[in-house]
């Protein structure tokens, strides 16, 4: 089962050793099975591989009329333009900074909540609590944006509370300083409960005899958590964190764009690579720079994934992706 879970790349190369004749006879022998994969292979070729050809736009002075191949080459002009673009450093910083905040906050809260969930012995309450905590994950960011207008908008419930308490109007939608906090709180709302699933599964899988032994020795439930559960959870937490680091250069477009949209006043703290790529396409209409940004992001992302995977392999070979 363990073996089956990995993608198994390079694990057995039987497919490559067949040679032309053997390969053809293999295709014929399992022709129905290979036939089955054709629709998906076409889909992947069209929607994943063909766009890779479009990466050329990053090195071109693109015009719609001439198309991708016909447009004149521009060398590294698009990249030069990108790195000289006012505020590009801020965009890279925001992407990483927000992701780090998200990673730390949701990991910590997921662990705390998972510890809490397994300690709730009342079965009905346990079920209710977990059901409610996980639910926000299934709500779209547009819905979140909608209720946020009712919470921190000009007539929003929190805005009202602040003003009733004698405070100044916090002007949430005009004050970028609030937004890292707002986004973190929303990420916790949306993801912390969902994140408990993995940890709860891990905790319930732990050897119960250890806990029995600890009880006999007079350990309190708090001691059982700090001395047994937390040390055992460390590997899971580290693995998930490392995998999170692999995605640290990918901004959450769905979240940021739904909440912030084209509100330029909030860009100083909320603009991330993915929203910038979108804006470069739709507003600046600079396809070359947009593509150059995506390419830069993909390459850095790829390096991060390989690095984090190498680190994972050292710590816990079983958890490595490839």
């Amino acid at each position, binding site marked *: 089962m363990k073996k089956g879970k990995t993608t198994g790349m390079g694990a057995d190369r039987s497919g490559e050793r067949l040679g032309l004749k053997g390969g053809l006879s293999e295709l014929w022998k399992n022709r129905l099975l*290979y036939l089955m994969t054709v629709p998906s292979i076409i889909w992947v070729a069209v929607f994943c591989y063909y766009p890779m050809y479009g990466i050329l736009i990053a090195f071109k002075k693109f015009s719609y009329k001439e198309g991708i191949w016909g447009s004149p080459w521009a060398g590294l002009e698009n990249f030069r333009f990108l790195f000289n673009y006012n505020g590009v450093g801020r965009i890279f910083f925001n992407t990483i900074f927000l992701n780090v905040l998200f990673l730390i906050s949701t990991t910590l809260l997921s662990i705390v909540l998972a510890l809490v969930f397994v300690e709730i012995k009342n079965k009905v309450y346990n079920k*209710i609590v977990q059901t409610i905590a996980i639910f926000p994950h*299934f709500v*779209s960011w547009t*819905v979140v944006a909608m209720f946020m207008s009712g919470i921190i908008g000009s007539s929003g419930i929190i805005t009202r509370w602040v003003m009733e308490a004698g405070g100044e109007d916090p002007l949430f939608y005009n004050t970028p300083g609030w937004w890292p906090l707002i986004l973190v709180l929303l990420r916790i709302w949306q993801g912390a409960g969902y994140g408990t699933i993995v940890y709860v599964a891990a905790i319930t899988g732990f050897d119960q005899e250890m806990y029995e032994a600890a009880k006999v020795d007079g350990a309190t439930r708090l001691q059982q958590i700090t001395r047994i559960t937390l040390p055992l959870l460390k590997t899971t937490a580290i693995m998930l964190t490392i995998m999170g680091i692999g995605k640290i250069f990918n901004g959450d477009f769905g979240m940021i764009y739904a909440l912030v949209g084209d509100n330029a006043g909030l860009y100083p703290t909320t603009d991330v690579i993915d929203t910038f790529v979108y804006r470069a*396409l739709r507003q600046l209409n600079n396809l070359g720079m947009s593509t150059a940004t995506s390419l830069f992001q993909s390459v850095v992302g790829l390096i991060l994934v390989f690095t984090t995977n190498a680190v994972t392999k050292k710590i816990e070979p079983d958890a490595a992706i490839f």
Partner: protein
Amino acid sequence: MSKIKVTGSQIKKSRGEKIFEIVVYAIATVFCIYCLFPFAIILGSSFETEANFATYGFPIIPKDFTLTAYKLVLGDGQIFRAYGVTIFTTVAGTLFSMFLTITMAYPLSLKKVKFRNVITFFVYFTMLFGGGLVPTYLLITKNLNMKNNIFVLIIPVAFSAWNMFLMRNFFNGIPHELSESAYMDGANDFQILWKIILPVSVPGIATLSLFYALGYWNQWFNAMLYLEDNRLFPLQYLLMRMLRNMDAMKEMARTTGMASGEVPANSLRMATTVVAIGPIVLLYPYVQRFFTSGLTVGAIKG
């Protein structure tokens, strides 16, 4: 003597345990309130009389209960249409996605398929690297000419490599003996997949269908990029437009024959939101276990 001692220590222990218990229940309860708070605002505000928003703000319990917003939602042609678009893309999209996912995942789960590693890499690589937004945008608008076509909400997002590998992991767990005897009886691969493998894979299929269905129900990105015809807008994108511009609200008022000044903007937004998440709320308690199992049955690995 010794008996008293034991009781004493038990009392002492149970006091600590009691505090522990209270803390545990408190954390869980507070987090649940935090999770539910936004929904209370959505629901409460959707029943509030519009004039009250300016004076009292968004309520959790409406001051003057009214169903005006819901009458508008039900009477509004555009919201109804958007609901239809969302339901269509969710049902048709999920079916198409499951077709692509199963037909790829099943062969990749079989050891006898010698090229499965090649195909696996072909798919897996797309999870690591891609063309990005602009090339995809050009592919869909120029090469495929899918602008203002409802299928742009389905076809470009139909296949997920992640979900496919998840499905393959489900198939990996099925014992080989099941299909072997069918081979002996002369059944072909299609028949075996359809008659033997799929019936025993119902939990996996349910899980993956739900993942896809939720994705379709909640999507708005492709609508924003590729659709201009407002008759094709799905619910989520309509919500986004209602939030962003007043014009969208006025447009809606026109279809119901209401003067634009009278649109109960805030309560209408919230009522539409209620309608948009309603089905998820109602179905969720029954399907939650599938989402949970999807994450724990080998989901962590590609």
